[in-house]
């Protein structure tokens, strides 16, 4: 499994058959495509967690998780050319401006740009993008510095690195939790079968 370099990225983006096409759209500027990555920008949809109402985010309890979704988050649609201030230790969920479509033989990972990293902005903690994924990527943006950081929708905020997947790998379509998302998404616990096992790890009335 190797990292795709620029020529291969451009070749796969130029594919005419959509099943084989690597898509990152729209690309606004040539400079977004680097030697082995594509820069992505911050989109306008953000989710801001609120500190009140919910005691603790216990992901093994579906009842608490549904409360978290209802009471903990505020969805905001930013206008372009409008600043958003991310305060120290604040976490928000953003989304990429770009929509990504990966063919079954390409895997991607999203990483912070080092310039933002040096200011203390961590851009992505859940960085893996599975083959076959289609959608805008939700970004977990956290300010680890001591000073507020001003963000604007449209700024290049991260970069996508692509890897080829061996051809013997499964050609199944991506069957994850998120169906062609176009906005920042809330965590989706208890949406797939594998999450049912969480009840195993919860406290029971009888001790083990």
């Amino acid at each position: 499994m190797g990292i795709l370099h620029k020529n291969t990225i451009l070749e796969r983006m130029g594919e005419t058959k959509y099943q084989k096409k690597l898509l990152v759209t729209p690309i606004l500027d040539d400079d977004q495509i680097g030697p082995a990555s594509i820069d992505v920008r911050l989109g306008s949809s953000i989710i801001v967690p609120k500190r009140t109402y919910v005691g603790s985010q216990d992901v093994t309890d579906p009842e608490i998780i549904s409360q978290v979704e209802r009471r903990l988050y505020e969805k905001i649609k930013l206008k372009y050319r409008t600043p958003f201030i991310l305060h120290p230790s604040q976490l928000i969920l953003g989304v990429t401006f770009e929509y990504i479509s990966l063919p079954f033989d390409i895997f991607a990972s999203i990483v912070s740009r080092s310039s933002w990293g040096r200011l203390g902005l961590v851009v992505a903690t859940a960085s893996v993008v599975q083959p076959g994924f289609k959608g805008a990527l939700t970004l977990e943006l956290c300010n680890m510095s001591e000073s507020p950081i001003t963000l604007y929708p449209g700024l290049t905020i991260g970069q996508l690195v692509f890897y080829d997947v061996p051809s013997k790998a499964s050609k199944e379509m991506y069957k994850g939790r998120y169906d062609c998302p176009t906005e920042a998404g809330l965590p989706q616990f208890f949406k797939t079968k594998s999450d049912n096992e969480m009840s195993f790890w919860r406290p029971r009335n009888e001790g083990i």
Partner: protein
Amino acid sequence: MSNSTPNGSAIITKALLLLQKIKQRILQIDDTQFPTEFSSTVKNILVNVLDNLSEAPKKWDPSPTAFHRQVLQIQELVNHLERSSNDYVLWPVVNYFNSIWLELFEGGRVHVFFSQSTQHNYSIYNFSDKLFRKLNPIIPEAEIQKIIDSEIYCLQLASLEEDNIPLYANVAHEFGHVVYNRYQSDIADIWSGLNKKILEDIKNEIENEKNLQPQIKARRNKKILAILTGFIKEITSDIVGALLLGPNFFLSLYEMSWGFNNSNWYAILTPALQLIKSYPSFNFRLEGLRKIAHLDEFCSELNAYIVKHDLSTICKVPDKNFLSLALSKKDEIIVSPESDSDSVPIKKILDNKMEDIKVSIKNFQSSVSDFLIKKLSKSISNIDPSDISELILRLHQRIPPNIIPNGSVFGKPAEFPSILLAASIYRLSLLSNNNLTQQMDTINELDRIERLTGKAFEVSYIQKEFKEWKKVERNFNGNTS
């Protein structure tokens, strides 16, 4: 009535307190969340109005009850301002329609702001006019003219349709009402050249009514004239919709007609003639638009591209059979309210004359369409069927229909009417292919199309702006290097 009596003074004080609260409410509205600058203009006007109203008891000694009543009524306009932020309206859609408006009324001091209605209906009203009428009992006209120094309309977007993007094409019809007002005398001349016989026939029919007092005859005649004028207003607005957005408006109106009896014409009577509303049947409107929007030719060309992209099995282009309208059903007019003593006789006359009315209006449609094409030539949309097929292909691949591939990594940003049309055609096709066992899949697919279309509007809008900026920047750097 002076405000010096104890009762009057109490009412004025209460009204002033309410004014203060309303002003606080307005000042808390976040300007940065307005999709266009004209919402900010409205905000400033309303703040100015409230400041002037606060001075009104000292300056102009208005009736306390009138003062209190008008202050209460101002709240309705503040509600419309509050619902004009990004929380309620899609800013890329609003910005697009705003740019059409600026083109239509270029150079004029006629503006529009967009607000979400609580009704399931689109409408447009003259905000400045409405505000003027609320202030007129309290503040002298000359003072009001200083506060409201431009003409501002409020376009209200249907509340349940905020996610039903294809129906936004109805905004163009609402613009048509303002175009009608602008060219009212020219359009009235066109209509009067075509309606002489039908008006004569109707007048004779009313005159021949035995034992009917002359004033009742005159009143019915005037009401019928108002109803017919209402029909041509709607037809004119439809034509503007079709010219601005092409087949989009036809498909949008087609979808709006679902759930209604498409052969019914409607007239809603009121004592004030200018408030009478009337609507031709959906069938009649759609059949006329089909020709003006050149729908059949467009669909035929589009179908060729759909076949080329091998999409025929998943996307059915709306041809004559798909959009078959129940034209064989006899049109009739529904006149309401039943409590109006003129409603039954007016219905009888108009039902008798329905075929002649339709012929007159069809002739009007053709003439006014030629007139409007000349007047609105800069704003007429020109959609390329090959672009639509590319965008439908993208939707089918679960990708936003935001660009037309052109061999470069950028692609050509798709235009708003093209994005809207691709989404409309694809979703109508899904709806028509749907059966009960696949309903959930269809619902999910429709939801996906809405999201992808919304994303396409946003990113293609930004891409076009960025491209323009890049051009200017390159020219600037080229000239200074």
